[in-house]
């Protein structure tokens, strides 16, 4: 009987379960459809604009691909092998590394120092942050043109100022030993404001009570910075180092404009990786070779980011 009643009762239960499952499945399907409808176009666009060009660049790097030549044979790793003997590429790699190291260290150290100083004048800080941020929104090309005039050896304001202290005329963009520092200075001027704002946000997130507790325990300002503030800002610093490294490794516009010769033709007096990629790809039309340089740049940046992630790992 119980079996019978159980048999009588069981169909409605399983039917309910079935209906529930169907509803859940429908809901899940609708959810997936909703997600696809909302994120799909963005993912598609991301695929077309970001992923496809990267994959295509990697593919091209294995070909002898010249824009104006119909024959584009597969050459395996030959482009990569040639990079090892290419003086221009190796110089550009070295210059880019030197420029990036100097720019990242100086920009981020200065930005942190400025952000900490601004914390001590909390009410005026937004105004100063705005001032520091102005170069960030100034487009690279006009900014570089202005700096080119500042650096001008004969008529530039920098040499004029230095001459008041007896410093002889310097060719900031003409002397191979000076040009890297000149470009680093422009880069620091341009990027500083962005990281001042980022660090400012990070510093505001440090709980006041922790700083007060440390102060009560007799910690000096330096000790509070090193043992309280910096450890708490580790994620912000990591983010800044990664972003700044990426931006600096991709430097091109300021170098291109600052080193343009009198007639406006690119002088390439200071070779950087993206400049070499531009020259090989869009001046000499060696797209395959430029592709190999792009892959090396990608690997360099990824390796540096991996090292930075490891260095900043929570222990």
């Amino acid at each position, binding site marked *: 009987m119980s079996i019978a009643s159980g048999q009588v009762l069981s169909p409605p239960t399983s039917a309910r379960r079935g209906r529930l499952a169907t509803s859940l499945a429908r809901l899940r399907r609708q959810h997936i459809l909703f997600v696809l409808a909302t994120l799909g176009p963005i993912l598609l666009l991301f695929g077309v604009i970001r992923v496809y060009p990267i994959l295509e660049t990697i593919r091209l790097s294995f070909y002898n691909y010249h824009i*104006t030549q119909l024959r584009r044979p597969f050459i395996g790793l030959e482009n990569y092998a040639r990079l090892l003997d290419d003086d221009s590429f190796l110089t550009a790699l070295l210059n880019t590394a030197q420029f990036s190291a100097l720019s990242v260290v100086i920009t981020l150290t200065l930005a942190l120092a400025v952000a900490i100083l601004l914390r001590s004048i909390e009410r005026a800080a937004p105004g100063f942050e705005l001032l520091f941020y102005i170069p960030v929104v100034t487009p690279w090309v006009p900014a570089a043109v202005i700096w080119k005039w500042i650096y001008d050896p004969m008529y530039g304001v920098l040499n004029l100022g230095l001459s008041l202290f007896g410093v002889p005329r310097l060719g900031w963009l*003409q*002397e191979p030993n000076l040009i890297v520092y000149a470009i680093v200075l422009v880069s620091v001027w341009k990027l500083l404001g962005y990281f001042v704002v980022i660090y400012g946000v990070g510093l505001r997130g440090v709980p006041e009570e922790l700083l007060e507790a440390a102060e009560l325990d007799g910690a000096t300002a330096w000790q509070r910075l090193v043992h309280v503030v910096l450890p708490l800002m580790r994620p912000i610093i990591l983010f800044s180092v990664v972003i700044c490294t990426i931006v600096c490794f991709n430097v091109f516009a300021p170098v291109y404009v600052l080193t343009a010769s009198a007639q406006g033709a690119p002088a390439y007096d200071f070779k950087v990786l993206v400049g070499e990629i531009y020259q090989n790809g869009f001046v000499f039309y*060696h797209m395959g070779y430029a592709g190999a340089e792009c892959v090396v740049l990608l690997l360099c940046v990824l390796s540096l980011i991996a090292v930075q992630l490891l260095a900043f790992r929570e222990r």
Partner: protein
Amino acid sequence: MRRRSVLTSGLTLGAGLALGGIGKLRADTATSGKLAIWLGYGETAPTYQLAMPAFKQLYPNVQVELLTFDLREFEAKLAVAVPTGTGPDLLALHDFLFPRYYESGSLDAVPSDLAAVAGDAKVFDPTFTTLVTRDGKPWGVPWWTGRSALFYNLDQFKEAGLSGPPQTIAQLWEYSEKLARRGADGNLTRAGISLRLTEPSGGIQKFGYFYYQMTGQQIFEPGKQPGMVRVTLKDNLDIATQALLDHVEHLHGPKKVDDWALKHDAQGFANGAAAMFFREAWVIPFVRKNGPDIHMGVAPMPRDKAWGAFNLVEILSVNKDSPLKKAAWDLIRLLQEQKYLDNLLETSGWIPLRKDRDFSGFLAKNPEYRALMEEPAGYKQYVEAPDTAYQEVTARTGEVILAAYRDASLLGNRDAARKVILKAHDTAVPILKDAGIYEA
């Protein structure tokens, strides 16, 4: 049913393609549409604009789109657009770009009447006819040249007690030493001659000006086989070494006549910061506009073993894929007329190549151009070797030479200078080999 619809679609598509093909054939002589012209030398645009009313009378339904770009941007856009069939209808090509588009089959054959003109020695110097001719046929019409000359500051020459421009390369260096000026701090304030110290392609070209006069050859000479290029640096190793040593000697040490920190080229000359420099005809309107107080003299290139002027030639061709070929050729015909050539000369400073046109009125009013437009006996006109790898080979070889200019340790060091020349040679050869145009 499905099969039938596929068949129908196929037939429709085939018919469409066939009609499209016929349409395309007919469109070559179309009298309506948009005729695109792209220019890398924007200063010639006013001449095209001046020709528009006359062109519009011939083709009232053809809209002309005239776009000017920065030179390098123009070259890059052309390289991408022409092979993909999206390039301009009229191709205004500099002589070093011309071989690339001829070899990729992108050029339309020149109509017979214009071909006769292009091949006529009374109309064009044979040097320029050769430049556009392949397999006995011209593939473009030479239009203007950027001929090299020596520009010098008359007032500064007078101040240095020099009565006229240097006649030889040796005199050029000697005069430059007399013309250079130093400030109280010992730094140069005026270059005796503004050398090309940046931008490698331009650097090797200007080094080549000295090299040509000293050797009678260009660094990159046309090979015996059409389209091939020879590197002559090893053939003239001692002279090339001397040319490099001359430059180094005048950039470092007591005979220094130029410095990287000075304003260079036409800008430096227009500012009075350079007493002499080599450049092309466009400098005349540039200096008139930007240095109105400068009294400028223009002279033929100084001679040595040889005597000649370098020519950068602009060639007018038509894109083989253009639906408006006839209209484009008619515009090129118009641009050969005296009125437009006068305008080209007056507005851009580039020199028209037609020998059968009369520019005497212009020369009477603008005597500076005489050194550029009149050819004394024995003064040879030479052009770049047709070179599909021109930009790469000149940029990379130029980098070697410009780096050597900076190296003061080369001062009087013949062995080291010789090594630089050999390095420049060895830099050029693999690039030409890669491009398949190297001739040993």
